[in-house]
């Protein structure tokens, strides 16, 4: 069956901070130059912001470059940070640590990134950008010369067996002079581009963390708008890179979350249950007691930093934002970098697309511009902080202090990364971890959590979590690692079911929060996360 095709100057995959910034800056430049430039953004979430999840404290630096008048335009940055606290937790005590310089938040704002992105979407549409939520880019299209031609959106109404159902609608092709991939961390199309164009040659493997977040409405007595708090230490052991964030937003809301580095080695570890346990610490519990949990979600994030940045352009396209790995780990922020990369991508794209003479198929100017920008410098300076935590929490803190205060990020060496999926040890070599049962007040089970993420996928569709080899979950993962996917998945997608014929892996793909952790952490890289039918996934409000 042939698909319909539409032509644009630029097609952007993903309506997050980087993709929308690229779109906005392109239109701003076109308007200023009096030129026509068609820009289309596709987004797999049911609306702009539906799949966005972040802490979030954002640094408005890149936003101010995009819209110097962002305040007048009503950007939803309503809660300036008023205080920063950094704590080290033990089982029942909390010790105040000096806040590391990167974590100082003067001039920054506590936001719901989902709402910021919804606002960016409105700004983009006002400038003439066409945004299509509910359409998932499922395939990269190539020209005869091997350059990227655009993308195709997924077919809708396909039955479980892969056959067209009664409401079948084939996807359509979006062709573009340049295609921008802004899929966020571990983009499913970006993954294919990495191998097709060898974009990771010479770069360290990307490393990741999983962030699990809840939004709460707390008692007014304990609420302190503008307060940010980060913790390290308990409940994770010192060999695990993990910590929490707790941000007091407006309207008595508190965003709380826990991030666990996916290079953890003990397969018995469950990031979800570490988070639930974290909230029961006396210092933390008091914030949430008597409060109400409003929302829940999870998302993987990049931790590789400078060493792991891939080649950023290839014939016909570019990588921007988190799919390229722009996140400042010690700063615990990525939005400003995602937006900055979008600005630089748009500037380079515009020059390329409006150049009168001959241009090649690749926008080389993007990486050049980025390397001249503050983003590159910022990423370079902190490059050794995250990998130093291979020496444990105390070793990492000690090294980070040395690197930050004494060497000021100018160490003559660069520490390297290993791929997260290679780090798991055998279950039999590790101590099992016993997690407390959820109490239903402060801590909860997975399914009641997924319920409030408003996640849904059209029921009759092929499973979007594809196993390369169906025997691996039992023969390898269960046998050697005690089925780690049943623990690292924050949505209970993976379940071992005992059948009379023996154990079987059941995949509850409908629960999937699109966090991508399984694609990252599966020890043999047997799980391929592909986009489900457009519009499926979480419907986060205010996350």
């Amino acid at each position: 069956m042939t698909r319909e095709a539409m032509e644009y100057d630029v097609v952007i995959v993903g309506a997050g901070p980087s993709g929308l910034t690229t779109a906005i800056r392109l239109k701003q430049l076109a308007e200023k130059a009096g030129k026509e430039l068609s820009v289309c953004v596709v987004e797999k979430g049911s609306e702009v912001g539906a799949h966005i999840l972040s802490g979030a404290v954002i640094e408005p630096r890149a936003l101010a470059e995009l819209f110097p008048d962002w305040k007048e335009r009503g950007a939803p940055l309503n809660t300036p940070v008023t205080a920063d606290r950094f704590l080290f937790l033990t089982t029942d005590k909390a010790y105040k640590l000096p806040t590391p310089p990167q974590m100082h938040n003067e001039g920054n704002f506590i936001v719901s990134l989902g709402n910021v992105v919804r606002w960016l979407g409105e700004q983009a549409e006002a400038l003439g950008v066409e945004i299509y939520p509910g359409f998932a880019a499922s395939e990269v299209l190539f020209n005869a010369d091997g350059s990227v031609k655009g993308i195709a959106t997924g077919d809708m109404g396909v039955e479980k067996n892969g056959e067209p159902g009664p409401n079948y609608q084939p996807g359509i092709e979006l062709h573009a002079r340049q295609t921008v991939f802004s899929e966020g961390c571990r983009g499913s199309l970006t993954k294919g581009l990495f191998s097709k164009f060898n974009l990771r040659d010479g770069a360290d493997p990307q490393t990741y963390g999983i962030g699990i977040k809840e939004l709460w409405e707390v008692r007014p007595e304990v609420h302190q708008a503008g307060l940010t708090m980060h913790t390290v230490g308990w409940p994770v052991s010192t060999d695990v890179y993990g910590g929490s964030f707790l941000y007091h937003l407006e309207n008595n809301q508190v965003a709380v979350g826990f991030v666990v580095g996916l290079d953890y080695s003990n397969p018995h570890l469950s990031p979800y249950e570490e988070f639930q346990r974290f909230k029961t610490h006396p210092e933390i519990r008091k914030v949430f007691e008597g409060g109400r949990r409003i929302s829940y979600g999870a998302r993987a994030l990049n931790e590789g930093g400078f060493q792991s940045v891939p080649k950023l352009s290839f014939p016909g396209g570019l990588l921007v934002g988190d799919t390229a790995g722009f996140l400042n780990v010690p700063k615990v922020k990525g939005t400003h970098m995602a937006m900055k990369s979008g600005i630089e991508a748009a500037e380079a794209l515009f020059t390329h697309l409006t150049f009168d003479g001959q241009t090649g198929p690749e926008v080389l100017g993007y990486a050049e511009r980025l390397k001249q920008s503050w983003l590159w410098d910022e990423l370079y300076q902190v490059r050794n902080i995250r990998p130093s935590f291979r020496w444990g929490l105390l070793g990492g803190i000690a090294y980070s202090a040395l690197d930050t205060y004494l060497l000021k990020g100018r160490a003559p060496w660069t520490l390297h990364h290993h791929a997260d999926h290679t780090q798991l040890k055998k279950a039999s070599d590790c101590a099992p971890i016993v997690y407390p049962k959820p109490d239903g007040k402060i801590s909860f089970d997975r399914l009641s959590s997924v319920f409030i993420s408003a996640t849904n996928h059209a029921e009759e569709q092929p499973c979007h979590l594809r196993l390369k080899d169906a025997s691996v979950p039992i023969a390898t993962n269960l046998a050697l690692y005690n089925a780690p996917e049943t623990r690292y998945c924050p949505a209970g997608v993976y379940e071992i079911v005992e059948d009379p014929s023996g154990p079987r892996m059941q995949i509850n793909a409908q629960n999937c929060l699109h966090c991508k952790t399984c694609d990252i952490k599966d020890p043999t890289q047997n799980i391929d996360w592909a986009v489900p039918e457009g519009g499926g996934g979480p419907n986060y409000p205010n996350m």
Partner: protein
Amino acid sequence: MKILVPIKRVVDYNVKIRVKADQSGVELANVKMAMNPFDEIAVEEAVRLKEAGKATEVVAVSAGVTQCQETLRTAMAIGADRGILVETDADLQPLAVAKLLKAIVDKEQPKLVILGKQAIDDDANQTGQMLAALLGWPQATFASKVEIGAESVTVTREIDGGLETLALPLPAVITTDLRLNEPRYATLPNIMKAKKKPLDTLQPIDLGVDVTPRLTTLKVVEPARRSAGVTVADVAQLVEKLKNEAKVL
């Protein structure tokens, strides 16, 4: 034959509803909104009638805030020809909506009005019936099948214990049930085309309708939480608990 399809913008069916802290209503800030699913079925049915040559024009109409325009665009992406928005920030109750719709019907003179049997937010199940009464038109509610004849329509309705078939002279009001059809996916090209279709905006005052609420909401509360169940060991224990704890035996 012209068909009028009234549609309502409601909180998306996937969203977990949350009551506002002051109990004045349901939290709507930054919550995903969508077309009432029963209305989507109504749009689909009208568009199918047009595709089958039984109707000449499908007009979608909505009443409410500015953002209802998006809902109307969705209806036009499914296949409605044009949209009318009666724009107001007022809290609209079924009787006010029915009066607005009557005014639109007087203006547009459709032969058929198809709308959802109820909206999934307030579950009132009143607007279609009130509209039929105000117009003095016959009505067929909870339709699971609609067949258009020359000057009449045959409607199969889902009722307790089976199906009921009614024949109505046109013009008429039909409200849709879940099994009438399965709405199509709006395709990208059709979403683009929908952006260019005509959309008129009116105010209630243009239609001479007073939409002031006639009912007052005292408070909105969440349903009481069910306490967790227990697994009983055997039948004897179950009987014992039903007798002594639940006291139902």
